[in-house]
């Protein structure tokens, strides 16, 4: 997207708005409805189509309200948002991620929304667990747009053709490795593997740790696993690589944390791992019909998965009209007409009523995601503690070390040790 153009135009708009401020001051009080919301969010084209339609409907329902919306990809988003906040030019309406919510809330960049609860923001039926997941230090900082879970995405037909059972909910890690090995021996296509290499996936690593009673991070912000745990994780995938069950390292290195670069989309694997709200994007990119199930489990282990508040809508602490922004959040996450337009693109809505309301409109693909969340719900564990500062950097370290192990520059044990060392150093510095 040509974000610089938007930026320039908006800058001009802001300048004009500033210039006209003195005149506004002397004008008679405007109607209650009038107001302006600047909105920023991340996402791709499909999300843009949905979001813009919902914004248009909100403007129709609230004549006199203007919404200036700006969007970009995940990587650019945080740089741009931080720059705008630092420049005293924060947008009113901010799409927030669980990981960043704590930093923004504790630094006072976004405001508590408790005063609007039950009024502009009627989201009590999201349930206390969900509201808590969007709270920092006991205050609500966002309206959750949807929940998601980590999942396994696969091409069922390819597994059928190989005559091997496809992954199912409740499959153990060992069982998964065996089924992938069986796929490999039955497979006739060259350069096609049973699964992507999951060793770089933080979400999958987390589920794996949790089934063993560990975690990525402890509540006090320290690392929730040790070098031996990480070593065993890398060793599991090294075995997979040796058995040719998962894609080789140079194929996995092409994966850039987006559905477009996934081995299942580029045709080198028939299984990959993703957050459930990405499932529709995966399906749009491949011809074959995809299925989605929960991640593998540990026999006799603890529940590894949890429902993550995938994204929330927050309000800037400098917003001039926070009540209006709260009203817009409510329209997008709790009003059936708005929520229906957003669909499941940002996760499965937390409100049971909204879920019911949008069910009839859902495509076959979207239904699979709702079914996944419903089937996982009895097996989920508690929401993990908030990730500490530096968690994003540790994620990057895990990706790099998974490549070092994959290209056999280091052994799985050495990889596990350096992941823990480097993570500890990052946490100490942050």
């Amino acid at each position, binding site marked *: 997207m040509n974000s610089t153009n938007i930026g320039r135009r908006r800058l001009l708009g802001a300048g004009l708005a500033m210039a006209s401020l003195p005149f506004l001051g002397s004008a008679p009080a405007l109607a209650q409805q009038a107001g302006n919301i600047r909105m920023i969010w991340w996402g791709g084209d499909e999300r843009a189509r949905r979001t813009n339609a919902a914004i248009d409907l909100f403007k129709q329902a609230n004549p006199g309200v203007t919404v200036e919306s700006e969007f970009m990809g995940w*990587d650019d988003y*945080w*740089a741009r948002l*931080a*720059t705008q*906040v*630092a420049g005293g030019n924060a947008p009113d309406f901010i799409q927030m991620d669980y990981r960043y919510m704590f*930093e*923004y809330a504790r*630094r006072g*960049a976004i405001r508590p929304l408790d005063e609007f609860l039950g009024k502009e923001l009627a989201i009590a039926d999201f349930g206390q667990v969900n509201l808590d997941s969007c709270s920092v230090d006991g205050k609500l900082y966002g309206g959750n747009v949807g929940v998601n879970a980590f999942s396994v995405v696969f091409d069922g037909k390819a597994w059928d053709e190989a005559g091997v059972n496809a992954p199912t909910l409740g499959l153990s890690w060992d069982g998964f490795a065996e089924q992938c090995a069986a796929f490999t021996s039955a497979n006739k296509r060259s*350069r096609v593997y049973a699964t992507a290499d999951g060793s770089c996936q933080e979400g999958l690593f987390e589920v794996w740790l949790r089934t063993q009673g560990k975690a990525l991070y402890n509540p006090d912000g320290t690392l929730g696993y040790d070098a031996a745990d990480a070593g065993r994780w890398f060793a599991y995938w090294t075995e997979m690589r040796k058995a040719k069950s998962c894609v080789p*390292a*140079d*194929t996995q*290195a*092409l994966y*850039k*944390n987006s559905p477009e*670069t996934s081995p299942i989309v580029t045709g080198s694997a028939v299984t990959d791992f993703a957050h459930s709200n990405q499932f529709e994007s995966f399906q749009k990119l491949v011809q074959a019909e995809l299925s989605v199930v929960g991640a593998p489990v540990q026999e006799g282990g603890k529940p590894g998965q949890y429902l993550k508040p995938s994204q929330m809508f927050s309000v800037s602490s400098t917003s001039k009209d926070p009540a209006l922004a709260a009203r817009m959040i409510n329209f997008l996450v709790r009003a059936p007409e708005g929520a229906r337009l957003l669909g499941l693109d940002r996760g499965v809505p937390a409100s049971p009523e909204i879920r019911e309301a949008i069910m009839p409109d859902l495509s076959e693909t979207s239904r699979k995601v709702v079914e996944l969340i419903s089937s996982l719900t009895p097996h989920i564990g508690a929401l993990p503690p908030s990730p500490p500062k*530096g968690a*994003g*950097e540790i994620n*990057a370290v895990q*990706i*790099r070390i998974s*490549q*070092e192990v994959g*290209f056999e*520059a280091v052994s799985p044990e050495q990889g596990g040790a350096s992941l823990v060392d480097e993570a500890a150093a990052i946490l100490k510095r942050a």
Partner: protein
Amino acid sequence: MAACDAINDSETKKGPVPEGWLKRAIQRNGAGYMFLAPWLIGFFCLTLGPALISLYLSFTNFDLLTAPEFVGAQNYVRMATADPKFTAAIKVTLLYVALSVPLKLAFALAIAMVLNRGMRGLPVYRAIFYLPSLLGTSVAIAVLWRQLFASDGLVNAMLAMVGIEGPSWISNPNYSLYTLVVLSVWQFGSPMIIFLAGLRQIPTDMYEAASLDGASPTRQFLRITLPLLSPVIFFNFVIQTIEAFKAFTPAFVISGGSGGPINSTLFYTLYLYQEAFSYFRMGYASALAWVLVIIIAIFTAFSFLTTKYWVHYDD
């Protein structure tokens, strides 16, 4: 027109200073400063100002959201003593500079010499060869490069024809940097144009005299072309070295911003970008930026010191 008249007036009048001289001078210089104003404002507000602020920030911890916290030289100390990623980025960048600059210059000079023979349709060839350097820094070309060197890309398809199964060039840490070097060499257009202009300056009678004396083409190249072209070579060398140190786009696009696989394409500027915009350590990123300025300044100064041994300005 009034300004022009004023200049003409002051230049034609000689002798004692006429009355209203000051007014005229202001009028005269004022017009100049007016014309300079866009550049001056841009320089002070958008270049010098931010540069000085970044110098200050390099001595702080600054995460954009909270006020900068002064930490003295801590950022510089960390860089020198406790940052393996910084060392990795320096190594990658130096290797890239050391490989790409000489190769690019040699390639540019070779093509320029071919084009200098005065072949038919020269302007067309010149345009075609120049084209890559217009496109090369663009995102589209970096994306194209990804396709070209992917495991099922064009390069491997051609290798397959001669029975070689090529690796995935861009995602293999052993080769990924070299694909970026090739991309850089491919953009030889602008040094080539400058070489071409330089070659045109060499008097042809020197070559005629040399061939009458029985000097071989190689000898002519070594004894006439290279020495007389040395100021141009020097110019291109300095410019291309600075460019190579500052390279960012290809690595950013080809590695998806990660500098991977395994930091093999972690250019210095990419590391700086990650520190600033992925991890919000603006203070440390500012310090990195100033160290890059110093590195480039030292390289450039060193290059100038060597000129007396190999650059000939005599004519």
